[in-house]
């Protein structure tokens, strides 16, 4: 049966076919849809959202130890969070096959950095697979589980944005029934204390030697001989991009299994071609290995060190120019950055927070990161998941040592990001007696990645009802005494809460609670937020004085007619959050459709 699948859908299908029984992940572009699709196989696979990637991987390790084929998936930076268990599960090994998917983001389409997680495979000494398209993604997942069990180790499966989010035709198969293996207690293998670790370390090294032999002989790595004047070495999507450019005018060493690299095969390929181009996204890993073997090749000296190696990039690097394009005045085009949706519950907070003087705003990862831009200018920095609260703490502590300090540091973090790694940071704030102001933007969902359930939503990934985490109680349990829960669409409430927090010389938490406008509201949401998104606002053009105050709220539903000098609200996108209504100095904005 043939299906048109994205790489992520193909991975999910492959996992099902491979007999996977347990899968866990934290959402992150471009990896999110892997678990969303695995979750649809309810009869056969237990699929869960974990609060973070470390928890996801650890859950999968436990599932593997007791004998199930298990999987954890995450975006590239998620593997940093999960790196702790990763390095040690390499030593302890596995029972049921364990595959860890890392979705790298060459080109940084939706990420804060361009780290190359092939480095993790090398550092943690575990095998790595790299599919180049959807069909390979599905087939290789099955192979990855076989290798994991054959060599008794976890396997890293690296995809990139273009593999995850591109569709291709995939020949699908049936599910292989893989029984849960027997669990046998073996502390020498599973408890990494000094009495056991030297032997574990030896096993890792022996395994690597065997895996290199596998790498040289597997069909996952192969030589494709055509014109031998140019030889291309590539893995992942880069191979497809290179074939698009060179076709049969080059020979290829196509690598699908990239740790350990097949050094024997690489030498053989080098002996058959005149000139070698290594085409790889991110770091020069294959290139450096070739050079270490004494093989001359062109790599990052010819191709850019950042971004995707798309056909035009390759063409330009090798031939000096891309295909002919139509010349036009690009200055005519105005930028179109992503924006908060009409009715976004972050708007009210950003609008008020951006106006505060003597304030440093420590941001985090989520839609609210867009608050750095016009018209809010409500963020000074952001680094990684959960960092807002801890960075604010460090900054405030140092500022407080200055005699004349009047600067307050405010952290802003979403509900899901708070559950991810913000809780530890807040413990630190309370424990080390900080006086930061911390805002948890609780929009009742993991929004930016496309609406995934989390411990605060009351539902699991596979749609079961579950406990709701009470953020207010959790914050208090961390040791924070000053907590307020507010409606962020009510600007007066936002302003008062901020005034209150600034007046305190102790740490505080403000929870802004209102659902994301794009959220499919649950029964509980409908009960709690009765009037949400049911009305619209409109401008009375008689009263409008053209002051443009409403446009400062950054709402895409509001536009300003320069000829008539009046503001307008698009009724198709307005959901009646009333933020604009509150900033209008002449009360020209009213509610309609109540």
């Amino acid at each position, binding site marked *: 049966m043939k299906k048109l699948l994205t790489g992520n859908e193909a991975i999910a299908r492959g996992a099902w076919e491979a007999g996977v029984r347990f899968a866990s992940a934290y959402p992150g572009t471009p990896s999110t849809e892997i678990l969303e699709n695995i979750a649809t196989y309810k009869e056969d696979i237990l699929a869960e959202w974990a609060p973070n990637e470390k928890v996801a991987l650890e859950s999968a390790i436990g599932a593997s130890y007791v004998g199930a084929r298990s999987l954890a998936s995450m975006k590239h930076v998620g593997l940093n969070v999960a790196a702790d268990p990763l390095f040690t599960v390499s030593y302890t090994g596995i029972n049921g096959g364990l595959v860890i998917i890392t979705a790298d983001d060459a080109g940084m389409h*939706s990420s804060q950095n361009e780290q190359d997680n092939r480095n993790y495979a090398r550092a943690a000494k575990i095998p790595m697979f790299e599919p180049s398209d959807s069909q390979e993604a599905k087939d290789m997942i099955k192979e990855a589980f076989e290798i994991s069990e054959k060599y008794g180790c976890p396997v890293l499966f690296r995809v990139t944005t273009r593999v995850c989010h591109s569709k291709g*035709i995939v020949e699908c198969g049936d599910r292989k029934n893989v029984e849960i293996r027997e669990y046998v207690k073996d502390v020498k293998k599973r408890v990494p204390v000094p009495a056991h670790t030297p032997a574990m370390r030896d096993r890792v090294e022996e395994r690597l030697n065997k895996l290199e032999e596998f790498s040289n002989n597997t069909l996952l790595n192969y030589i494709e001989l055509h014109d031998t004047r140019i030889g291309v070495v590539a893995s992942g999507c880069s191979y497809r991009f290179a074939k698009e450019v060179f076709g049969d005018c080059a020979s290829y060493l196509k690598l699908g299994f990239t740790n350990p690299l097949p050094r024997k095969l690489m030498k053989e390929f080098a002996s058959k071609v005149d000139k070698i181009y290594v085409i790889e996204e991110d770091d020069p890993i294959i290139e450096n290995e070739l050079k270490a073997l004494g093989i001359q090749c062109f790599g990052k000296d010819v191709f850019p060190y950042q971004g995707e190696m798309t056909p*035009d990039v390759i063409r330009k690097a090798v031939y000096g120019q891309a295909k002919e394009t139509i010349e*036009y005045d690009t200055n005519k085009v105005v930028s179109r950055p992503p924006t908060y949706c009409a009715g976004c519950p972050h708007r009210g907070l950003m609008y008020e927070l951006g106006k505060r003087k003597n304030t440093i705003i420590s941001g985090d990862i989520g*839609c609210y990161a867009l608050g750095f831009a016009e*018209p809010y200018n409500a963020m000074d920095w952001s680094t990684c998941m959960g960092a807002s609260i801890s960075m604010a703490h460090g900054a405030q502590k140092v500022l407080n040592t200055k005699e004349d300090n009047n600067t307050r540091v405010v952290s802003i973090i979403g509900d899901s990001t708070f559950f991810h790694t913000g809780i530890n940071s807040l413990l630190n704030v309370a424990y080390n007696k900080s006086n930061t102001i911390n805002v948890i933007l609780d929009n009742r969902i993991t929004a930016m990645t496309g609406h995934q359930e989390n411990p605060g939503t009351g539902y699991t990934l596979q749609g079961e009802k579950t406990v709701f985490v009470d953020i207010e109680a959790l914050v208090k349990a961390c040791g924070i005494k000053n907590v307020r829960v507010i409606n962020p669409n009510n600007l007066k409430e936002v302003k008062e809460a901020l005034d209150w927090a600034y007046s305190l010389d102790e740490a505080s938490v403000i929870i802004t609670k209102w659902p994301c406008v794009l959220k499919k509201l649950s029964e509980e949401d409908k009960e709690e937020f009765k009037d949400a998104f049911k009305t619209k606002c409109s401008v009375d053009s008689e009263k409008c004085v053209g002051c443009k105050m409403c446009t400062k709220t950054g709402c895409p539903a509001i536009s300003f007619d320069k000829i008539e000098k009046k503001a307008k609200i698009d009724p198709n996108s307005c959901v009646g959050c009333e933020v604009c209504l509150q900033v209008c100095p002449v009360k020209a904005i009213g509610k309609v459709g109540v």
Partner: protein
Amino acid sequence: MVKSILLVGVGGQGTILASKLLTAGLMEAGYDVKMSEIHGMSQRGGSVSTHVRYGEKVESPVIELGGADILVSFEMMEALRWLSYLKKDGKVVVNNFKINSMPILCGLADYPAGILEELNEKTTTRVVDAAQEAEKLGNAKVMNVILLGTIVKLMGLEGINWEKIIRDNVKPKFIDINLKAIKVGMDLV
């Protein structure tokens, strides 16, 4: 021979459904098909693009600069933003529909004038009023399938059973209006 179709627009305009139907149709017709789009934050009102490539055997899912046979823009300014992806002799379909981006809404920039003139001067461009046509059909959202209709016509894909594709991929209550929409699109160009 591999053909490349670039659909561009603004997040939320429905390029995803249009490309889903398009790729399903191409697959049904026996082509090898690849499609690429970027998800994530850009969906929040940002500029979005979907690359569709089909032929006997497709390698790259991505269209390169100067590589698209046709550029279909759901929004006017986006046509200009993505124009460098069009082949020198490629065709443009541009929806006569403007969405102001945040710099424009904030008064930091003006919506550019003379886009259609620029496009007409540099390329073979067809300007369509898909929004108006969609309103006539009674649902502004079918603008995307009207634009799909223009692709079907201009790429000579009328032989594919689009009725079946729409029936298989669209919710029952929207089937009829989408069947009308694709036909309207085909007749517009």
